[in-house]
């Protein structure tokens, strides 16, 4: 085990961490708004990846080119999910809240399996391919692109939340639903918008992942689990903190993989999550 391998792994962990962070940010945003965990988040990601894949397979459109369209489609899907399902269970028992999105997850995953089969697909010859080497370290260009783009999207989300009137209204709704509606904020619209933006996050992430990751109906499960861990690490509802939490998850994943046992890398991430929520139930950074 040389320092080079270690450094190499940490870098790839950080790169992946930015993508995790973007996925988790969408989940965190929704949770912060209405204290509902979207258990179908991973399946939304899977749909985005399939969207990117089919765009390439049918019309040879590169995932990066179709990214805006995929993101828009996911935004619409999020709003529809809110209007069609979530709105009706907001005041319902927690069990209904958990299982409504769980049911949706199963529906979407098995729907994808029904339509597309269980095969693994891959986008061959994406625009960006190959790798660069930096003093003995190799970085895959698709990974680098995905990472930088995810970071940019994250920054955009942060700017939107903190510097635009709509973003501030979203934050106000998250802090106090009633006070916000007394201030003239249409909380119903904010909820729908939150679901739209939260889903758009995985629209971006899914398109980016599609350029270097396999696409298959179950792909969302692993990413979703990692996203829950990331969100819980950062603190549920704390969007900015998911960036650091995502990087932590990415680094722990690769380090656990090479230092302990590659087969156990997810178990190690989950163990870290359990430790953190038990010691600090509010997450590392608490609420935003």
């Amino acid at each position, binding site marked *: 085990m040389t320092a080079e391998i270690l450094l190499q792994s940490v870098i790839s962990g950080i790169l992946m961490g930015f993508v995790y962070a973007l996925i988790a940010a969408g989940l965190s945003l929704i*949770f912060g708004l209405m*204290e*509902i*965990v979207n258990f179908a988040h991973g399946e939304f990601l899977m749909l985005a990846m399939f969207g990117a894949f089919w765009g390439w397979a049918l019309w040879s459109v590169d995932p990066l080119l179709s990214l805006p369209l995929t993101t828009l489609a996911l935004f619409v899907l999020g709003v529809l999910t809110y209007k069609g*399902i979530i709105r*009706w*269970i907001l005041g*319902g*028992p*927690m*069990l*209904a*809240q*958990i*299982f*409504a999105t*769980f*049911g*949706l*997850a*199963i*529906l*979407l*995953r*098995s*729907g994808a*399996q*029904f339509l597309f*089969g*269980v095969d693994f697909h891959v986008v061959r010859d994406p625009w960006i391919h190959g790798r660069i080497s930096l003093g003995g370290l190799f970085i895959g260009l698709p990974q680098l692109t995905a990472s930088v783009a995810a970071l940019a999207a994250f920054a955009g989300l942060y700017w939107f939340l903190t510097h635009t009137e709509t973003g501030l209204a979203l934050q106000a709704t998250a802090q106090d639903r009633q006070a916000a509606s007394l201030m003239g904020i249409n909380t119903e619209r904010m909820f729908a918008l939150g679901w739209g933006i939260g889903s758009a996050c995985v629209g971006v992430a899914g398109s980016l992942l599609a350029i270097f990751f396999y696409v298959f109906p179950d792909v969302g*499960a692993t990413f979703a*689990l990692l996203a*829950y*861990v990331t969100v*819980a690490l950062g603190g*549920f509802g704390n969007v900015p903190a998911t960036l650091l939490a995502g990087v932590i998850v990415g680094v722990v994943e690769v380090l656990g993989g090479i230092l302990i*046992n590659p*087969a*156990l890398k*997810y*178990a190690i991430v*989950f*163990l870290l*999550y*359990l430790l953190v*929520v*038990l010691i600090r*139930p509010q997450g590392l950074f608490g609420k935003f």
Partner: protein
Amino acid sequence: MARWLTGALALLVLLSLPAFVTRPHHRHVLIMILLYAMLAAAWNILAGYCGQISLGHAIFFGLGAYTSTTLVKQAAISPWIGMVAGAVVAVVVSQAIGFPVFRLRGHYFAIATIALGEIVQTLFINWDWIGGARGVFIPIRRPDSLLHLQFHESKQNYYYVALAMFALALLVTRVLERSRAGYYFRAIREDQEAAASLGINVARSKQLAMAISAGLTALGGTFYAQYILFIDPESVLSLSLSILICLVAVLGGVGTLWGPLLGATVLVPLSEGTRVLLGGGGKALDLLIYGGLIVLISVAQPGGLMALWRKGWRRAA
């Protein structure tokens, strides 16, 4: 009185079913209904009555299956003893898990149980001594013997074992419903702070619910191993199994006595039926319908089919 009569009548019907249902596949469906009803009833004690939504119950199912199977393979010990041993292991593990995890609530608790389930499954996949990812075949015993819990001549005996286990789960639930502990569970479900302020030891009650639920689930795991005669981490420890157990209970009606049986009676034939119709082929049509049903029921009637039933009953009366 009328309720007892209905209950007795239902059990009588269940007892005599193998006399009418003679084809092996139909009997298989009945056995799976009872098994899932039993698992959902066990889950229901923790989630439905005590309000702690566990999405990691496959851990206990898997522990039951693996404990008895390992004892059979390594020491030729009867699966009945293995069943008890599996339940003991599951209860011990459940207490170890519960001690830290019960400090979390709501969504946090649910996610923590998912994480735990994933950890346990990963460990079993990588644990070669008990079969690893390849799984384990349970050695076939001939002739049929109750001692070894293997019946190859007819599925009838499996049916009665499954029925006995379901009856046990039902009985435990019934006794709990009327007991002090059962009232504590429901008080915690409704309002944990209020329950604590009335002097209920919340932590201890949750641990008790967890222990009962885990022990019963492990019994189901041993039965599954002896019935299917093959187990691997994917079939007995996966997240999808944990979710399936919940779905049965949620569809039937969480926190009700007969909800699990009702849910299993709808879901299991649905799954077996679509599998027969489509010949498997990885099309997952059954899951597609499950998912749709669960969304529908969560949105329209969170009380599950039992609530619909009661509503209809009241309207008729």
